[in-house]
């Protein structure tokens, strides 16, 4: 599913260049549940962005779902993000002026397919347990509900992989546990590959692989 080989990524240029990732080589099989842990600035989010095709300014090879991301045009990468990857963020990134249904269906605007967006959005909101919050604005939802909306948005286009950047970082432990249960359910029932960056590794009891990053280097990749 994910094949990274000798990935290097720095921010800035020349003497001011700060390495964010170095010598990253790894393989993640399809259907895996991967956690990425490490201290702040260890390169976790950068790794996620590279896998998700949001960051292409690196050296090395990143092949995701059989596609070499660096060889793709902007349009192809956009289509890849639209159809193959679902993103979940720590701060939810919901648009405040749109209700839950509209937030979930946002990616339909950028899809070439003409699927029934409203029906699909409702279906995925039901899937994450928000059938009674369809018309609620983000401001009317709790943190856990917002993250569920964000997860519904991530699975709207039926992607093969979810990339979650500290999805429980803004939630209390109990709500965070519920969100992780939802990820586990998506991983097991829907066979979605999940890569989650977290500081709370202990919550991800069912992860199949834990990656530890330190100063941009992969310290180990092992079954937790």
């Amino acid at each position, binding site marked *: 599913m994910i094949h990274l080989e000798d990935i290097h990524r720095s921010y800035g240029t020349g003497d001011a260049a700060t390495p964010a990732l170095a010598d990253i080589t790894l393989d993640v099989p399809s259907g895996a549940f991967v956690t990425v842990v490490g201290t702040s600035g260890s390169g976790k*989010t*950068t790794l996620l*962005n590279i896998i*998700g095709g*949001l*960051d292409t*300014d690196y050296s090395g090879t990143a092949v995701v779902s059989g596609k070499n991301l660096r060889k793709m045009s*902007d*349009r192809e*990468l*956009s*289509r890849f*993000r*639209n*159809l193959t990857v679902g*993103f979940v*963020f720590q701060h939810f*990134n919901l*648009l405040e*002026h*749109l209700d839950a249904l509209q937030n979930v269906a*946002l*990616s*339909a*605007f*950028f*899809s*070439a397919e*003409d699927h029934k967006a409203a029906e699909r959005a409702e279906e995925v909101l039901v899937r994450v347990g928000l059938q009674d919050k369809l018309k609620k604005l983000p401001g009317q939802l709790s943190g856990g509900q917002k993250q569920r909306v964000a997860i519904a*948005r991530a699975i709207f*286009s039926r992607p093969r992989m979810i990339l979650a950047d500290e999805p429980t970082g803004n939630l209390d432990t109990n709500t965070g546990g519920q969100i992780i249960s939802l990820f586990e359910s998506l991983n097991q029932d829907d066979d979605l590959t999940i890569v989650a960056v977290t500081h709370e590794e202990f919550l991800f009891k069912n992860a199949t692989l834990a990656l530890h990053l330190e100063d941009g280097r992969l310290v180990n990749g092992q079954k937790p």
Partner: protein
Amino acid sequence: MKPGKLSRIISQNLRRNRKNLVFSSVGLVVGISSFFFFIALGHGIKHTVATEIFPVDANRIQVVPRTAQFDALAGGRIIDDEALQQFSAISGIKAVYPRMKLAFLASSKMDGRSIPPAALSMIAKIPGITPGMLGAVKDVRMWLEIMGNGIDPRLVRDDMVAGEFADPQPGQPIPVMLSRRMIEIYNTSFAKARNLPEINEMLLPFIPPLPLTLNHSFISRHVQGNELQTRMKVVGLSHHAIMGGITIPLETAKKYNRQFAGERAAQTYDAAILEVESSDWLGHAQENVNRLGFDIDLSEKRMAESVGLIVTLVTLGFSLISLIIVGIAAVNIAHTFFMIIFERRREIGLMRALGASRADIRAIILGEAGFVGVIGGAMGMGLGIAGCLLVDFLVVKVLPDFPFKPDSFFAYPTWLFFGAILFAVAFCVLGAYFPARRAAAMDPSAALTGR
């Protein structure tokens, strides 16, 4: 992105930012309204010049004998029937309309007291005629030296409103056409000052035949032969009629020229108007006319062109001011969009994460700008039209009548309506171009993390 989806996302974003966009498009509305106003004003004035003051027919040219002495010595010709035939034979010529000066003197002694009572009572019934005007008509005493020419009746076919313009039967009054320009000056200056009724096409049928004496002058003592007392009846107003005199049917002019000035005068035309199939033939016709030894009289055309040029330059000047206003508005719009993009940085990053390409982001921003342009352009156009109507209203209310005062100072060519909108859209899109480029070039991972 498909157009339907694009328009939905644009309308969502516009609703959110309407306050910012309304403020930034105020300049656009003002600029477009002034652009619309000045272009309409320029067109209106040009239209008045071209149709009322110096009417120019694009498919007609006026041929005159050569006037330069050298040319005359070198074989300049008079316009006679043979020349007319040669003009007709030029390819592309659709019709030839000869014009002949009256080669004898004429006069008219008008006396209001001699107007028959029946004619006076008819005049009294005309709407707008006041008893004071009727009194002024009765008091008219005018001794006029009359100049005149004869023209081909086909030229003024559309101008006849009070009778046939053709050589009259014996005993009948001579039909005459008067110059529209001369009547305009009479109406706005002469008639008003003397409380006389204004002359217009509605009034013509009620004007009784007026006295006309041929081969007579109040001034010159060199008139030979007998005078002829007759009458003239104004049957229409035409741009083809001469300014300071009367225009009569060509056959009538020939007949009286023959009677009072001889056969040569009856066979010599002072000009001929050539009508070409289309303006494409004008150059060819002019070449052949010159080759035959004649000149083209371009004085009216040149006058119209000169006035038109002045109006165009003034309009351009004002339009330039409008352009500057719209240009400043575009800068303002650019600033607003830079601000909007800064505010929406994370949202743009999210859209990129959800599958928006750079082109999609660019299209969204430019689409929003285009929509602002359409709305701003339409509002500016509305304001411009309101300004035109207000000025027209004030001119009618406030300004006194003057020659060639038009019903409206403005003309609205169809392109102006589309042009104003397109102009607004173009400037808005131009203003949003760099913000859109910046938004499209945004690194999505940096935008999402706020880096």
